[in-house]
């Protein structure tokens, strides 16, 4: 069997977004029309709850024996269907973990839990993993998340990398701690491209016409254009956004497709020669039969994003969730998870654990998993929308590029 094919089916963090979509589309259209239909749709901000005293909230919580953990598929260490890290957690704390890989993508999962959150009910999950972006901003702005009690997270204080501390989307890590980090840069196939790739300009090289891949995630797409323009997306303005589309429009005729997570298959298969890419995917591809794919940090800079653990309002077991967060932020547990997941580890000291205990130098020595400290200087976050209108403005700016 073609290893590409196999990997295509088993690839980590390869949320088959369409899987949910196709099933959800019909039901979703019916559902939201019928349910929310007749006379208006309540907004997420309409819920009260901004005045919670979180100190007394935590004071009232008691330890329970259970944790309900919603994560993305193939996003935790797995050996014969079991996770060693979770088993160690249960052994250490007596907390039993119901781990469910139910998150195919941020938007559909948000759409799934939003009605319960808005109604003030439990979603059935204590812990969920969201990428920084509009949905996470929405969760925070709508008071759908439990504020973290950092006095119970000493390991985060001790071990977390600078990259994941105090992010712009959640100052002071009030609501979230990072599960995994990823970089968005450029990847190319050295079989087809024999020159050095250094810049976003290379995505607009006519020599690669018909073999350029871009992301259909309009945040990634816009950020690439902004970086190309020399603007840090975190501090960009709507004027910059508008300006940056010129390059995207010009570059569009070279583009073979605007892809979701399948972009990496297209790169592996030779449909695309050069593409926007996530570091973790390229690392995994290198390990599984595609050593000729290469990830580069463009000289204009790269994007850094984080998948974050958050505690959902209405959670039945917030203490368990907090305990897991703290437990995860140790070199041992983060190392065990990282050695399997291979994105960017939020605990730099896990590198030594992987090297010395797990004895896997390929992972330990990879700059894609444990980047040098200097990577901070060239990495920029996403723009954080102040409100929905800004988010919509971003959409209106970049969607016409993809949707054409």
């Amino acid at each position, binding site marked *: 069997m073609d290893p590409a094919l196999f990997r295509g089916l088993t690839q980590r963090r390869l949320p088959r977004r*369409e899987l949910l979509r196709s099933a959800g589309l019909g039901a979703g259209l019916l559902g*939201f*029309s019928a349910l929310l239909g007749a006379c208006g*749709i*309540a907004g997420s901000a309409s819920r009260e709850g901004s005045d919670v005293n979180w100190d007394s909230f935590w004071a009232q919580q008691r330890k329970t024996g259970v944790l309900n953990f919603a994560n993305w598929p193939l996003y935790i260490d797995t050996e014969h269907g079991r996770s060693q890290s979770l088993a160690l957690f249960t052994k250490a704390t007596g907390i039993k973990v119901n781990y469910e890989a139910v998150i195919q993508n941020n938007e559909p999962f948000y759409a799934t839990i939003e009605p319960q959150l808005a109604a003030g009910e439990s979603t059935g999950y204590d812990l969920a993993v969201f990428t920084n972006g509009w949905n996470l901003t929405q969760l925070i702005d709508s008071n759908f998340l439990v504020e973290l009690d950092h006095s119970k997270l000493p390991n985060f204080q001790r071990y977390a990398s600078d990259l994941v501390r105090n992010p712009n989307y959640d100052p002071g890590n009030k609501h979230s701690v990072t599960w995994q980090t990823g970089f968005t840069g450029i990847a190319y196939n050295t079989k087809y491209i024999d020159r050095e790739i250094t810049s976003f300009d290379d995505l607009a090289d006519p020599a690669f016409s018909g073999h350029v891949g871009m992301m259909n995630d309009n945040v990634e797409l816009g950020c690439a254009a902004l970086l190309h323009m020399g603007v840090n997306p975190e501090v960009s303005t709507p004027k910059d956004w508008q300006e940056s589309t010129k390059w995207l429009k010009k570059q569009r005729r070279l583009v073979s497709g605007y892809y979701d997570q*399948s972009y990496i298959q297209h790169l592996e298969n030779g*449909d695309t020669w050069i593409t926007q890419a996530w570091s973790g995917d390229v690392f995994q591809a290198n390990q599984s039969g595609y050593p000729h794919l290469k990830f580069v940090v463009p000289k204009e800079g790269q994007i850094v994003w984080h998948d974050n653990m958050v505690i959902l309002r209405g959670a039945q077991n917030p203490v368990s969730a907090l305990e897991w967060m703290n437990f995860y932020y140790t070199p041992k547990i983060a190392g065990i998870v990282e050695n399997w997941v291979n994105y960017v580890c939020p605990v730099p000291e896990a590198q030594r654990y992987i090297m010395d205990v797990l004895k896997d130098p390929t992972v330990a020595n990879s700059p894609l998993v444990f980047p040098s400290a200097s990577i901070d200087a060239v990495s920029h976050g996403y723009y954080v929308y102040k409100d929905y209108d800004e988010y919509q403005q971003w959409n209106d700016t970049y969607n*016409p590029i993809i949707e054409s």
Partner: protein
Amino acid sequence: MTTIQARIAKEPGSLRRWVSRHSPPYWLSLVGVGWMVLFFLIPLISGLIVSLETGNPVKGYTLTWNWHIYSQIFVHSDIPYTTFFIRSLIYGGSATILCILIAYPMAYYIAFRVSPRWKNSLLLLVLISFFISFVIRTDMWAFVLADQGIVVTTLRHLHLVSANFHILGTAGAVIGGDVYNNLAFMVLPIYVALERIDVRILEAARDLYANSRQTFLKTVLPLSRAGIFAGVLLVFISTVGDPVNSALLGGANTYTIGQAIQDAYLNNQQFNVAAALSTMLMLMLGVIMFIYARIFGTENIENLV
């Protein structure tokens, strides 16, 4: 009801008259009407209402009878929704026609040319791809049709195509995926229609001087019309609104209305835009199907029952 009962009690023979006057067609049609209301009218109207609301997902949406949205979408939008509609109709229409051309010989072969004990196995074969998830088997095609995939490389080795030849990312790939994923929905109703044809009717045609071609054109084809009709409904509706094939097999210029609705709803959370687009899609399909049914006759629908 009481007055009716009283009247029936008074005139013994009147019950039958009353029932025969009021019952079968009218009562039975209620089921159909209920079905329509439940599964077509309610979604259509609530979709329409949502489309006329304004607001955002944070503050909520309120009904402001914003009919303007339709002109916004079709006239003043940076996003060419009209193009997506037309493109989707072309994809769906082409896929439907191709499905007929491929499915008919398959169904014919299974219905008439295969010994009965093989029929079930062959029908199962038609359905076998359904044992794998729709998305995954579509994704498989993305591998097969990739530039370095078996199809394109073979064609290149045979020098049948130029080095720049693609399949993936083209409209052809999307239509091909539509055909592949919906073929069974065409094969099965045609098979059922063919299977129901009495072989003696074909013998009668032969007996009455029709050669093979004429027998097919004058009896088999018209007698299987109901199956084709049903297949066309199933395949056309499902392909026009499908977002998956264009997303997985398409490229930069194959964006369809199904994708647009999905992105508007899930990614952009523009519930009103998504609702307006799906309302338009439903209306458009409704009108096309209505015209189609009028042209090809309601008897085809009756024959399906």
